[in-house]
């Protein structure tokens, strides 16, 4: 096996180890602070969950860069090269001195399996997203464009309303729901969906779902569920600001939910639906209660900044620690 491939294997192994470290830190944060975060006001909660979701990937990138920093320095300043002090069997995480010994065959096979599995999941997820985007585009092309309202009317009696699309999201409202809602309820529904479009929730949600794959399964599920509820509640709050009445927004949610339930009972729903009230309950109860005060994420951002700078300052130590751990697990 060529030295370059052996080196790439070590870097990949280090990257996966850092990813796992970030996932464990995120799991600890969710276990310790998840319940508290769930009570934050929705906009701050949405941002905090997105940051938590990105933590493993971000820590893998930063820690791998920090651990590679001594080697990068040796590339531009050979006098600072420290590698000659190690023997040939050392797991060099280095661009100058490629490792003479490859990693264990079992680990190589595990890496190949992991990378193939992740690639396969990514392909399936991407194809599902592409199919959904195509369906939305077909609905938008063949629906009635209401430029005065900035929406597309879908010709069906099913009571549905949604914002859809990743890069150019749009609001689609069914004829059935358009006719069933009062002007006040329609204003709430459209304000809510326009908030999704303005906030680009579909794009953020898709990125968070992609990040969620590298978390522990229960953490990934929590992140996706909490992000969805936080996005819905943030849009409820924006709609409430527009109509200046939080109770009207709660009532509109229940009107649409009731209409969807009737459609489901009369088998007008497109496919069988699952039953669960958690999201609707949380949204309505939050709107009937007092609004949570805005929360600044500055302390969280400062803490992350301090950790990142510390990793760069401790690059030498991190480099040696990573090589020592790799020497133990790779050979």
């Amino acid at each position, binding site marked *: 096996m060529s030295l370059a491939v052996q080196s790439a294997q070590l870097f990949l192994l280090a990257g996966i180890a850092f990813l796992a470290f970030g996932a464990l830190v995120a799991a600890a944060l969710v276990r310790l602070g998840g319940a508290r975060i769930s009570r934050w006001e929705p906009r701050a909660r949405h941002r905090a969950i997105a940051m938590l979701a990105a933590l493993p990937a971000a820590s893998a990138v930063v820690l791998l860069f920090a651990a590679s920093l001594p080697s990068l320095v040796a590339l531009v300043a050979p006098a600072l090269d420290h590698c000659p002090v190690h023997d040939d069997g050392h797991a060099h995480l280095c661009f100058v001195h490629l490792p003479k010994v490859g990693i264990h065959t079992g680990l190589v096979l595990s890496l190949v399996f992991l990378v193939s599995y992740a690639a396969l999941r990514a392909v*399936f*997820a991407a194809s*599902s*997203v592409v*199919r*959904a985007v195509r*369906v*939305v585009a077909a*609905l938008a*092309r*063949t629906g009635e464009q209401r430029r005065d309202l900035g929406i597309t009317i*879908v*010709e*069906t*009696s099913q009571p*549905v*309303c*949604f*914002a*859809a*699309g*990743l890069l150019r999201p749009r609001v689609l409202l*069914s004829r059935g729901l358009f006719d069933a809602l009062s002007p006040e309820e329609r204003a709430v*529904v459209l304000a*809510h*969906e326009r908030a*999704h479009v303005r906030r680009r*929730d*579909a794009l953020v*949600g*898709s990125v*968070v*779902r992609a990040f969620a794959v590298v978390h522990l399964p229960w953490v990934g599920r929590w992140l996706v569920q909490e992000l*969805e509820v936080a*996005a*819905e509640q943030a*849009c409820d709050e924006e709609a409430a600001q527009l109509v200046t009445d939080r*109770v009207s927004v*709660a*009532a509109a*949610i*229940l009107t*649409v*939910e*009731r209409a*969807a*339930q009737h459609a489901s009972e009369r088998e007008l*729903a*497109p*496919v069988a*639906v*699952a*039953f*669960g*009230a958690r999201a*609707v*309950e949380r949204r*309505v*109860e939050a709107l*009937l209660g007092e609004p949570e005060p805005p929360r600044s994420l500055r302390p969280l951002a400062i803490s992350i900044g301090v950790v990142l700078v510390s990793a760069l300052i401790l690059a030498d130590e991190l480099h040696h620690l990573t090589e020592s751990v790799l020497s133990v697990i790779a050979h």
Partner: protein
Amino acid sequence: MNHLWSGGDGEAKAVHAALGKRRGITLNTIQSTLKRLFEKGLLERDKVSHAHVYRARVSRDDFHRGLLGELVGELMHGQAEAVVSAFVDLTERAGPEHLERLEALVAERRRKIERGPR
């Protein structure tokens, strides 16, 4: 499809005159698009003298209903949930007892607001 649903003439030349010239689409493209939609089962056609005359085989309502079904199926079984932000979930319904409890809470809050602060 929009042209045919709105009662437009279904001959390729007529479709080209109505849409193609304005949008810069050639007659060949119009013909092949109509043929593809026919093969997909969305259009049916009759041969009148030398030309095919197309008409919609499914109504706009049925077409949209089918697309929504496809979308919800994708949301339930695929990874596309984040692409769609529905006002209320498309794939999950609150049970009747939950809904009644929440409606009672909203009605109670409205009564309180109407009575005003004491």
